[in-house]
């Protein structure tokens, strides 16, 4: 996936790191010290959806085949969405002062693509 660097308007991943100390959450979140709140933005023109690396699903690949044969199935357009997510392990206090260690799947956007 592409990283957003301001040079193009294509679908890319925008990194967005939040330091829990800066938002006053470091009193109840013991670790990690911040969160990668990355997100996807940018456009998905027709040729982009054809790029193998960005086809995030079998469905997209099939639709691309239609497109390449000029048989565009309706006004199908693709969206710039997360195509790879990772888990975030957190250690925090809950409202009973218990310490909770939790593995939260699909919490961090690692890659974006057109689907």
């Amino acid at each position, binding site marked *: 996936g592409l990283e957003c660097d301001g040079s193009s308007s294509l679908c890319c991943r925008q990194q967005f790191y939040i330091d829990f100390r800066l938002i006053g959450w470091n009193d109840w979140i013991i670790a990690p010290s911040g969160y990668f709140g990355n997100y996807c933005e940018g456009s998905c023109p027709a040729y982009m959806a054809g790029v193998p690396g960005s086809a995030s699903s079998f469905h997209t690949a099939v639709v691309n085949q239609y497109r390449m044969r000029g048989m565009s199935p309706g006004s199908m357009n693709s969206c710039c969405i997360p195509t790879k997510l990772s888990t975030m392990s957190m250690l925090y206090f809950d*409202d009973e002062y218990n310490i909770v260690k939790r593995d939260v799947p699909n919490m961090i956007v690692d890659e974006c693509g057109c689907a």
Partner: protein
Amino acid sequence: DASRDTCASCGGAQRDPEEPESRLSGDFLEAVKRHILSRLQMRERPNITHPLPKAAMVTALRKLHAGKLLEDGRLEIPELDGHPTGNQVLEENSEIISFAEKDDLVTSKSSLFFLISSEGNQNLEVVQATLWLYFKLLPSELRGRRKVTVKVYYQEPGLGSRWNLVERRVELKRSGWHTFGLTDAVRLVFQKGDRRQNLDVRCEGCEAEGVLPVLLGLGDESHRPFLVVQARQADAKHRIRKR
């Protein structure tokens, strides 16, 4: 193009160039906070008025290999600090460390309780629950190991309900931590949707053998009893696994 306007994530929500960056990041920040709280199944962040004694916290985390204390007093959690673990976990595993509390209405020194469940971890399924107790060896002429029988009584959820017993023979060469399985007890608490686990800890032979179980009220925070509950999301079993 009409469909492009409706699809929120298609082509990225076009930003209004006049919109000040700060308001955007303010809204965005709120959205991220909401996202984190919703993934932890919390309505709002917990209100930490009196932080937990650091000694108790560090001991528990160190015991569970979850953290170590740096020189400047900060707690470093190796596999957590600052970087996502990146491992693809399909099930949400949780580990809850609950510290013993004393019921002021109960005079008995041997009674204590744990408030285990809370808003964020209601629909969890208990995999294992372990009570950690610290036993101190008092100076004594006795030689060799000291043998005592520890009886942990736990009350089933609900007022005036039944007490059950977990008993274990413990041999001590030195002061140290010992664990007692309470999986059935804590599973009952979660199944009943309760939050509190009442315990009563007795020790046969402790007085004669010069052994002191460290419960509460001894001012020894770093040896405060704690309960470790390993759990997973109850619906995780039925979740369709990614193919």
